[in-house]
C-alpha cells in the first residue's frame, strides 16, 4: 500500500519564531487581555462603520481567544501575535461571511465624547472629528491588504515583525506595504482636499 509522507502546510510557509517571555501567571494573562482589549477594538473599529458591530466582533474575538488559551504558548511567541492572529482570521471570516466592503462610514462621535480632550474647544473637537472621518474614509479606499496592514500597525499597534507573523509575510514586505499604503493615503487625502 502506498504510504504518503504528509508535510504540514505550515512547513511550506515557514513562520518566524520569536522568543517569548516565559510562562505567565493568571494575573499577567488577565492584564494582557485588558491591555489589548482597546487595541483589538480599535483594529475592528477602523474597519467597521458601526459601533455596535465593532463591539460585537471584538467580544467574539476575545471570547474565542479565551476559549482557545490552550493554544497559546508564551515560550513560542508574543501574546500580541497570537491574539491578533485570531483577530485577523475572525475579521477575514466576518468579511467573507457578510460580504462587507472595506470602505468605512465612520462615526467617531462616541469615541470623542468618551474621551474629550479638556485642552481643546468644542469647535476643535468637531474639526478633529471631521478630519478623522476624512482620514478613515480614505483608508477605506485602499486595497484590502494595505488597509489590513495599516490597521494592524496603527490601531493594533503591532510592530512590523508582529504583523509579519500574523499575516504570514516577510517583515521587509510589511514595511514596503506600509510605505506604499501611506503614500496612497496621502495622495487620496490631497485629492479630497482639492475637491
Amino acid at each position: 500500500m502506498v504510504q504518503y509522507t504528509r508535510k504540514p502546510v505550515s512547513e511550506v510557509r515557514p513562520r518566524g519564531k520569536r522568543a517569548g517571555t516565559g510562562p505567565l501567571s493568571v494575573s499577567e494573562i488577565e492584564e494582557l487581555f485588558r491591555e489589548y482589549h482597546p487595541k483589538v477594538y480599535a483594529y475592528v473599529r477602523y474597519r467597521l462603520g458601526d459601533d455596535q458591530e465593532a463591539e460585537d466582533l471584538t467580544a467574539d474575538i476575545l471570547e474565542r481567544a479565551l476559549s482557545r488559551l490552550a493554544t497559546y504558548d508564551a515560550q513560542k511567541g508574543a501574546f500580541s501575535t497570537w491574539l491578533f492572529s485570531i483577530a485577523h482570521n475572525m475579521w477575514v471570516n466576518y468579511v467573507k461571511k457578510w460580504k462587507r466592503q472595506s470602505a468605512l462610514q465612520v462615526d467617531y462621535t462616541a469615541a470623542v465624547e468618551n474621551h474629550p480632550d479638556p485642552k481643546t474647544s468644542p469647535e476643535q473637537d468637531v474639526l478633529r472629528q471631521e478630519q478623522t472621518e476624512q482620514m478613515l474614509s480614505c483608508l477605506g479606499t485602499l486595497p484590502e491588504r494595505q488597509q489590513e496592514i495599516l490597521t494592524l500597525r496603527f490601531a493594533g499597534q503591532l510592530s512590523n515583525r508582529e504583523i509579519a507573523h500574523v499575516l504570514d509575510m516577510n517583515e521587509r514586505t510589511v514595511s514596503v506595504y506600509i510605505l506604499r499604503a501611506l503614500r496612497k493615503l496621502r495622495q487620496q487625502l490631497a485629492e479630497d482636499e482639492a475637491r
Partner: protein
Amino acid sequence: MNDHERARALSVLLDAASCGQDGAPPEADGELRALAALGSALGDLRAEPGAAQRAALERMLQAHRADIARAAGRREATRREAPRPGASMAGALAGLRAWFSGWRLPAAVGALVVMLIIAVLALVGLPGRGGQETMARVPSPTAMPVPAAGATPTPRAVDGPTQEPTIEPSETPLAGPATRPTLSPTSTATPVAIPPSAVALHHVRGIVEIQGADGRWEPAGARPFVRAGEDIRTGALSGVEMAFDDGSVARVGADAQITVDRLQPAETGARAIELTQWQGESEHTVARAEDNHGWYVVRTPSGTGTAVGTAFQVRVTPALASWFSIDEGTVRVSNLGSSVVATAGQAALSRMAEAPGQPVYRVRGEGEVTETGPVWRIAGQAFVVYEASTVVGDPQVGDWVSVEGHVDGSGTRYADRIVLLTRSAIAHVRLTGGVDAIGATAWTIAGQQVTITPETDIEEGLQVGDAVSVDGTIEAGGTLVAEHILYRGDSVLGEAFSYVGVVQSASKSAWMISDVQIALNGETATDVDLPAGSVVLVRGNVLEDGSWLARSIRRASSQQRTFEFVGEVEQVDPWTVAGIDLRTDPYTVVDEGIGEDDRVRVQGLVLDDGTRVAEAIKWDDRDGLAFAFVGTVERMDSWQVSGIALAVDDDTEIDPGVDVDGLVRVTGHLAGTEWVAERIEPAMEAGEGAGCIRQYSVVTKVDAGQVALLDGATLTRGGTMVEEGTLERGAVVEVEACTDRSGSTHVVRITVLSHVDVPPLERPPLEVPTDTPSPVAGPSPVAPPSPTTGDEPAGKVTICHNGQTIEISTDAWPAHEAIGDTMGPCPEPDDRSANPPTKEPKPTKAPKPTKTK
C-alpha cells in the same frame, strides 16, 4: 534610495514617533517625514472601548478563569464538569451562571433563562459541557436494517436506524446537517462486542463486504467483524482496517480480497492468524506473540509470508505476483518449498510457479518530477522504469508524486510504482465567467477565447449564458487550452461540486457514494447500470442547507479522479472540510487566514485507495476573482506573465520579490478582454526536484568520518546528517536524502533498523556503466551479492536456522554453524501449536474471486 530602503527608514521614524521621540534618521527626507506624520495621525485615531465593554471583558475573564489558570500552568479544581443527573442543583446553577456570565445578556433575563433551563434539565438530565463534547448519537450497526438479498439498498440515515431520507424525486433536498453532506455513520459506529474467533473491522471506507458461510456478500456495515472462514473484499476507492485481538492490525486497500483462514487466540495455545490475500494490497502490523510462539501468515497465489512481531506490506499484482515489503522485523517468504528471509528495509518478490527471489533493498519517497522517460528523476534521484513499473495518474514534469521501488546490486534504483499526488500549478489557469459563444474548437468565456481539444472534459448541457469555471493550461503565446469546463452554479441553485467516488447504495432519491449521501431529483441524469461498486463522477450543486444535489451521475473513466466542492472547515491540518478528510502536500495551495468554520472551496485528486489529496483550499468567494494562474514573469514594464498581457494599475498589489523570470501567482478579474491583475505574488512552488527519498541498505564499513553502504554509496558523517542508532558493519539502515528548493540534495538522516546475521564483505568495485539502463530489461530484482570466500561460484544449502528451514549460500554456512544452526531441514514438530508449519499450506478456496460488475 529605493523603496526597500525608504520603507526601512520610515519604519524607524514611525517607531520613534510612537515612543514620543524624534530620532529621525539622516536619510529621512521630506516625503518620509510627511508619511511619518500621517502615520502618527492614524495612530491618534484609536477608538477606546466604553465602560460597558470593559465590564463585559471582566465578565469574560471571570467566566474563563479555569482556561486562564490552565494556560498559566496551574490546574484548578473548579473544572467545569457536567453535573450528572441527581447532582446538586447548586452546582448546576453555578455552572450555568458561569456559562451565561460570559455573554452580554442582561442579568435579569439571564437569571430567568438559567432558572428555566435548570427546571428543564432537572427533568431530563444535564448535558456535558466544558471539556466534554456531546457526540451525535449514531445507531449501533447491529440495529441497522440489513437489506434482504436482491433488494434495492437504501441509503443509510445518520440519526437513528429507522429514519429514512424524506426527499421526493422532484424537489426538496435532504434534511441533512446544515454544513455538510450527510455522511455514512459507519466510521463512528458504536462499538459492538466482537466474538473471540472474529476480527473487528474499523475505518470502513467505501465498499467493504463480507462473505458469510452461506456464500452471500453483505455490507460490512451490517456487522463490524469477520469470522474465521469468511472472506472480506473491498471495492474501488475503498478500504478497511482489520484489528485482531492480540493487537495486530491489517489495513486492506482498494480492490482487495482476503480470506480469514484461521484465528486462534493466545489463550487457547500459540496465537495463530492465517490469511489468504487473493488480490489487492494490504499493510500488516503484527504484534509480537508471547514467548515468541505463534505465527502470523499471509498466503497469496504466488507465495506465503510468515511473520513474528513485524510490520510489512503485501501487494498482489494483477499478474498474481506478490511483493512482501518489510518495515520492521523479519518475514519468511516461501513458495514451492523454498524460502527466503526478508528483513526490515527489504522486499521479496514471489511469482507463480517460481521460488521466491532473493530479498532486495527498498527505496521509496515523494518529490517533484523533473524528468520522465526510461529514467525518471524524482526528488533529485534517478529511477529506472521497467516493464513491471506502474505509473498512476499520468504525472508530468513538475508534478508531485510518490515512488516505491527497489535497488539492485549495482545501486540502480528501479521504480515499481509512481503515483501522482498533486499536479503542478505552473501554467495552469482557472477562469470563471459566462459562456459567450460555443464553437467546435474554441469557446468564448468571459470574453476570452478558450481552445477546446478532444480531451477537454465539458460538462453536459452547458449553454451560452451559463456561468462556468474553466481549468486549463496556458500554452505558448498565452493560448488557453481547456481541460475542464464545468457549470459554476448560481445564487439560486448553489455552488457547483464535482465528486468521484464508488457507489455503495442507490435509491430513487438518494445514493451513497464513497460515504457521502447524494440527493437526486427528477432532473438528475444518470448512466444506466451503475450497481454498487461502480466508480462514478457526480456533478451537482451544494444547496443552502449543505446537502449535495446531483445534476448528473456518470461512470467515471480511469483518468477522471478530480474533485471539487464547497463546504465549511471542520479541522485544520490535518484538514477536514464538510466532513471529508483531506491530505495536503507541499503543493497544496491554501489561502491565507483560513480557519475552522470558514467556508472554502476545495479542489484535488482522489487516489486509488480513496484518499483525497487537496490541491487547493481557497476562500469560497462567490463574488470574487475571475481568474488565477501561476506563470513566469516575462515583462514588467508592460506586464506579461506566461504570454498573458496583464492590466496593472495603482490598485494592483505587487508583492516584493516579484521579478522577471520569477514564478508568480496572478489573481484578478476580466474586464472585456483585459486581464486586470489584482494581485501578483511570488508563487509557493516546491522547487526544482524537491522531495525526500528513503533508501535501505547495509553498512559495510564505518570509520570516524564515513559510512560505506552495500549499494556503493559512501556517506560523510557529521554535518547536517543525523545518525539514529549505532552504525557498525552489518547494520541495516534507512538513509533519507532530501532535495531542497534550490535542487541541492543532502542526506538528512541515517537510521539503524536491524543487523544482518552475516555481515557482508565489501562489494567488489564495478565498472561504471556508460549507457542508461534499458527499461525493457527483465524485472527480476538482483539481490545484493552474497559473501564469498573464494573464486568458486557459491551453491546453496538447506539448513535449520532458529527452528525454521531456509536456504543459504554454502559460503555462509560457517557463520551459521558457529551460531548453532544445523544442516538440512528442521525436524517435523510433534506439537503443531509450538511451531509454525514448514510446508506450504494449500489455500482452502478457489483462487479466482469473481468481481461484481
